[in-house]
């Protein structure tokens, strides 16, 4: 543990109320928390009781566990992760075990409300995600339930300083709601932190990798498109212009900025503005993936985007997005005429495009040895069209390999100097190289790059891409042909059926392009087949395609090409069309196995040799085994591996500020170790910008927190105890209030406490919390019908606006209201608006001229017509809801908990469900199940009884399904849906 960490713990323990700690991200939160726990444990020697740890994310839990449970020593402190589905009596046992418990606020709230856990049994409360606390949050609810009866320290932590400054005086309000007086700020630039971390800093090498020309082009184009979207957004005059810069646009938090400004008026915004906000999100992804994905995967992602976003998006039609699609394709392949001219450029004839071509040429020259050599040109001779594979490799790949070579050499040299034989063991201990990238899939890919060579990786991706294309195409024709072979030899259409053919010329070209792609794909599939069954020379499957699909020519125009290209003359087009057709036939007739296998040989077969060649180009290492031991680490996975693997060299492949801090701490904890860190940045890329501004942003957040801290006002009582939010249910306060209003009656206020039965699932929302603040007793139960039971007659189904639209769309609302109307005399639909959003459904423009069945007005009217007994409550905010509840409860009896619990529960076997029911189910899977065709309200339970999980369900034979679903027809529907081929790209 570093000295500054000890200081953090010591500071925290000074105040009996506890405190709030805000750290720079990446600083060792887990080690501070576990040190604190040990100290607390030491202080509380009395038996029984427990320490509660709330809202700790899983990786943090794992870290704390590792720190507290040292492998070969007696555990210092019992630590349990209390799963929400743990039976109640087990939970009760744990509460009195003097252990530290990880809990979800939901289960804990219920236990506190039902007195299963007495506040006096809790020694301390630790909140690990303080940035999510507010006076209506669930952890604040827990803090209040505890502090109300028992003074105990609350320690709150956050390692997201920027989240602590979003919104007005957020830190102060969070502290008040958690009964905390002291704020401790520990930025990276804190004197103690800085001196600890900089005492023996690691050796840092900053490697700037230039991006390829097309990558740079795409980046510029994406930024342009973002800029255009922002300009458009600014034109709406609805947002503060100052915050809308491309600079901020590359951050996730940008959405938050925009949404915070737009939310209050969200429902009054037009479709276009909403789409702009969504587009910005998509564009940011494109920017991010550009440096993370290989060229083929990137293209695949773009293809998917084009299908899914389709006509909705604004940006997809902008000029710059054509460039994105065009360049992304250029990184993978291009279509050229047999005489070598570029087909596309030929047609366009614009100077810009010409330049692109020359650039491309240069790029190709830059691509060295292996890349070019492997580029087989698929020639469809008579057609006169070539598909030239480019398969651009990510520049970082090469650099990474070079780095690894260099490191290996150094290690060998060092080992040589030390006159130590190269022994496996020693090598591993000192020489592990850790490569940190963003996600698991990049890890896998990089690993393959190292072992198989980058070209092989690109080929594999490319083949997958082509096969995917061909398969989709094959599917398209599957209806008539029984052949499942995914071969594309017919008349081929473009990837997306966009609109009708305004210009036919381009369509044939895009056809040719797709043709070429599919021919290439079929070659691959033939080769694969060759390998599998050598004598398979059956071409009948391929011939079939010829007959069909001609009519589709006109439809098949990819959007990009339509608007980019000059119309060709009709004659020209038909020529090409015919050419294309005949070319295909002949082409496929000519294909013979040997030709392909040789071609494939040159392209990819002896991968090992190739990789070896590649190696020899850099170092004198011919054997790949001489690479240093490499481990890959996905930053997103949040596992803390540094202490486990103890690397001596770290290559930060995708720079990330949190990880950098972790490396710093790791080095500081191991001062004697030699550590070298390489940063791989793409030069002048959004990656660099993002990294740099994330540091700047964090510093700004801390500066703002420091200012806030100096102005903070936290109320305390005489004993310097923190008071926290005012409570209506303090007995004194309440009776004095009542005495004023009821003086005239001269009667004592009724002793009885108001109570409301609340569905367990509702504890995700803040309403139970606020109801409790108002002094209402909350009885948590799993309700089958409704969300709140206010009296034996009144039952409420609460819907936020988003829920309302969703559950109307899914039909759930109808069912919910139907059952509620069946069981309660006064069924209430509560439509709850959010305080900080607009109080209205839609803008005037959305109302339209006609009665449209999709409009919310129509849906509500229909609901009201079918359930005339349904009462609707429109609530402006959470607090307004509470007032309405209180007023509805006057003159009503208190609800009966046992009765409410039984309402609507199917009593086939007479078993009354116990109260943790909701937590015992995989709700996400059930929701999914209920949305499958053939599954209905009446049979989903028996399906769940009959099979364990969705994965299992997917594999059940149709006969078994029929038993579960209850009908042959339903089972068939379900089975067909599950096994249907996805026709997604068509």
């Amino acid at each position, binding site marked *: 543990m570093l000295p500054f960490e000890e200081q953090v713990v010591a500071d925290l323990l000074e105040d009996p109320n506890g405190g709030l700690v805000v750290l720079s991200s990446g600083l060792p939160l887990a080690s501070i928390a576990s040190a604190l726990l040990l100290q607390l444990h030491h202080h509380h020697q009395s038996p029984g009781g427990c320490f509660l740890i709330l809202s700790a994310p899983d990786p943090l839990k794992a870290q704390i566990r590792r720190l507290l449970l040292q492998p070969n020593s007696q555990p210092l402190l019992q630590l349990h992760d209390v799963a929400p*589905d743990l039976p109640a009596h087990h939970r009760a046992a744990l509460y009195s075990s003097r252990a530290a418990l990880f809990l979800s606020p939901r289960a804990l709230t219920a236990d506190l409300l039902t007195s299963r856990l007495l506040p006096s049994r809790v020694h301390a409360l630790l909140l690990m995600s303080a940035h999510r606390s507010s006076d209506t949050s669930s952890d604040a609810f827990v803090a209040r339930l505890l502090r109300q009866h028992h003074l105990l320290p609350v320690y709150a932590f956050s390692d997201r300083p920027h989240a602590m400054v979003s919104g007005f005086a957020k830190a102060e309000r969070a502290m008040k709601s958690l009964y905390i007086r002291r704020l401790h700020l520990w930025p990276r630039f804190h004197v103690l932190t800085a001196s600890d971390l900089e005492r023996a800093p690691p050796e840092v090498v900053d490697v700037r990798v230039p991006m390829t020309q097309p990558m740079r082009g795409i980046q510029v184009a994406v930024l342009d498109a973002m800029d255009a979207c922002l300009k458009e957004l600014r034109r709406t005059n609805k947002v503060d212009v100052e915050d809308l810069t491309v600079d901020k646009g590359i951050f996730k938090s940008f959405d938050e900025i925009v949404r915070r400004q737009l939310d209050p008026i969200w429902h009054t915004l037009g479709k276009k503005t909403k789409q702009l906000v969504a587009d910005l999100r998509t564009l940011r992804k494109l920017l991010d*993936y550009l440096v993370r994905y290989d060229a083929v*995967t*990137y293209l695949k*992602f773009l293809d*998917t985007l084009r*299908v899914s976003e389709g006509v909705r998006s604004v940006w997809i039609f902008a000029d710059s997005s054509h460039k994105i699609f065009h360049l992304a394709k250029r990184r993978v392949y291009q279509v050229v005429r047999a005489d070598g001219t570029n087909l596309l450029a030929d047609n366009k004839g614009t100077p810009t495009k010409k330049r692109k071509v020359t650039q491309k040429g240069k790029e190709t020259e830059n691509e060295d040895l292996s890349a070019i050599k492997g580029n087989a040109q698929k020639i469809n001779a008579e057609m006169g069209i070539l598909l030239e594979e480019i398969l651009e490799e990510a520049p970082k790949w090469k650099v990474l390999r070079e780095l690894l070579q260099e490191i290996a050499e150094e290690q060998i040299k060092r080992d040589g100097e030390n006159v130590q034989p190269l022994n496996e063991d020693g090598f591993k201990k000192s020489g592990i190289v850790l490569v940190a990238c963003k*996600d*698991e899939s990049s890890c*896998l890919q990089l690993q393959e790059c190292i072992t198989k060579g980058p070209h092989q990786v690109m080929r594999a991706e490319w083949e997958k891409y082509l096969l995917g294309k061909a398969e989709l195409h094959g599917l398209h024709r599957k209806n008539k042909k029984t052949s499942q072979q995914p071969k594309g030899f017919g008349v081929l259409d473009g990837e997306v059926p966009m609109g009708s053919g305004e210009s036919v010329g381009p369509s044939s070209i895009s056809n040719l392009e797709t043709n070429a792609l599919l021919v290439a794909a079929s070659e691959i599939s033939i080769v694969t087949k060759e390998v599998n069954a050598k004598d398979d020379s059956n071409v009948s499957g391929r011939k079939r395609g010829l007959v069909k699909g001609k009519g589709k020519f006109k439809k098949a125009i990819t959007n990009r090409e339509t608007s980019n290209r000059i119309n060709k003359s009709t004659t020209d087009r038909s020529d090409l069309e015919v050419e294309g057709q005949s070319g295909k036939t002949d082409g496929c007739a000519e294909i013979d196995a040997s030709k392909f296998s040789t071609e494939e040989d040159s392209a990819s077969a002896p991968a090992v040799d190739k990789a070896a060649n590649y190696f020899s180009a850099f170092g004198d290492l011919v054997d790949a085994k001489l690479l240093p031991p490499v481990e890959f680490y996905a930053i*997103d996975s949040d596992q803390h591996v540094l202490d486990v693997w103890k690397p001596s060299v770290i290559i930060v492949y995708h720079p990330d500020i949190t990880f950098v801090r972790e490396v710093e701490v790791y080095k500081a904890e191991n001062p004697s170790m030699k550590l070298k860190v390489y940063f791989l940045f793409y030069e002048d890329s959004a990656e660099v910008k993002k990294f740099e501004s994330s540091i700047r942003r964090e510093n700004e957040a801390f500066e703002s927190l420091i200012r806030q801290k100096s102005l903070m006002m936290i109320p305390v009582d005489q004993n310097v105890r923190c008071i926290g939010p005012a409570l209506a249910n303090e007995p004194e306060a309440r009776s004095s209030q009542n005495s004023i209003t009821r003086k005239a009656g001269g009667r004592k206020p009724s002793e009885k406490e108001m109570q409301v039965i609340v569905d367990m699932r509702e504890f995700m929302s803040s309403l139970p919390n606020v109801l409790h603040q108002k002094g209402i007793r909350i009885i948590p139960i799993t309700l089958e019908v409704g969300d709140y039971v206010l009296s034996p007659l009144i039952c409420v189904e609460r819907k936020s606006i988003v829920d309302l639209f969703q559950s109307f769309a899914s*039909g*759930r*609302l*109808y069912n919910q209201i139907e059952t509620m109307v069946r069981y309660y005399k006064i069924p*209430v639909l509560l439509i709850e608006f959010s305080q900080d959003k607009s*109080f*209205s*459904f839609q803008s005037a423009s959305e*109302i339209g*001229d*006609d*009665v449209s*069945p999709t409009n919310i007005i129509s*849906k509500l*009217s*229909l609901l*009201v*017509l079918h359930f005339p007994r349904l*009462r609707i409550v*429109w609530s*402006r*905010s959470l607090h*307004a809801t509470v007032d*309405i509840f209180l*007023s509805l409860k006057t003159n009503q009896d208190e609800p009966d908990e046992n009765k409410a619990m039984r309402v609507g529960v199917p009593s086939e076997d007479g078993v009354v469900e116990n109260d943790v029911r909701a*937590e*015992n*189910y*995989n709700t*996400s*899977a059930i929701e*999914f199940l209920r*949305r*499958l*065709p053939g599954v209905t309200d009446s049979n989903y339970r028996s399906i*769940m009884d009959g099979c364990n*999980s*969705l*994965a299992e*369900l*997917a*594999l059940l034979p149709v006969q078994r399904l029929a038993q579960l679903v209850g009908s042959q027809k339903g089972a068939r529907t379900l089975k067909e*849906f*599950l096994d*249907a*081929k*996805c*026709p*997604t790209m068509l």
Partner: protein
Amino acid sequence: AGSSAPAPKNSILVSHRQKGNPLLKHIRNARWTFADIVPDYVLGQSSCALYISLRYHLLHPDYLYYRIRELQKNFKLRVILCHIDVEDVVKPLHEITRTSLLHDCTLLCGWSLEECGRYLETIKVYENKPADSIREHMDNDYLSRLTHALTSIRHVNKTDVITLGSSFGSLSQTMNASMEELARCPGIGERKVKRLHDTFHEPFKRVS
């Protein structure tokens, strides 16, 4: 618009009290005519509506109560159509909510006269319409069904549905995909991978 001819069966009956209400201008999708009726609007055999604006309620807080008291019991659906035309809605809306709830009325709110008018039109036009469009319905188009199912998993969007579909070929194969296979799909991050995998592989019932 309003004619003085004998009331046809399929038009909204409007009380003479409502004469001059600018709301009437916005009833365009249904015919309407003035008639001697107790409620402000008669929207069908058994449904009627009273109109009130928040501003009016603030001036005459008892008005609504007296109007409701006059209504006969022979209307099954009694709508209070409330025009939200003030900024500070909480208190007046609370009162109106309470009154309509205690006196068996259904409250509907409109933020503009168009919206209020549209409610009246719609209730009239939909008088005999079945509830199909708000009940759970099966969309027969494969992709929208697939999207419907997969997007029930939090944070899975339309693009992801297509990615998953084209990567695995069918839903059953998607449901049996391993973490690693899921992670290889572009655009599916760690969290989505876990969520998808949990949904498919965790048992329906966590405790048996």
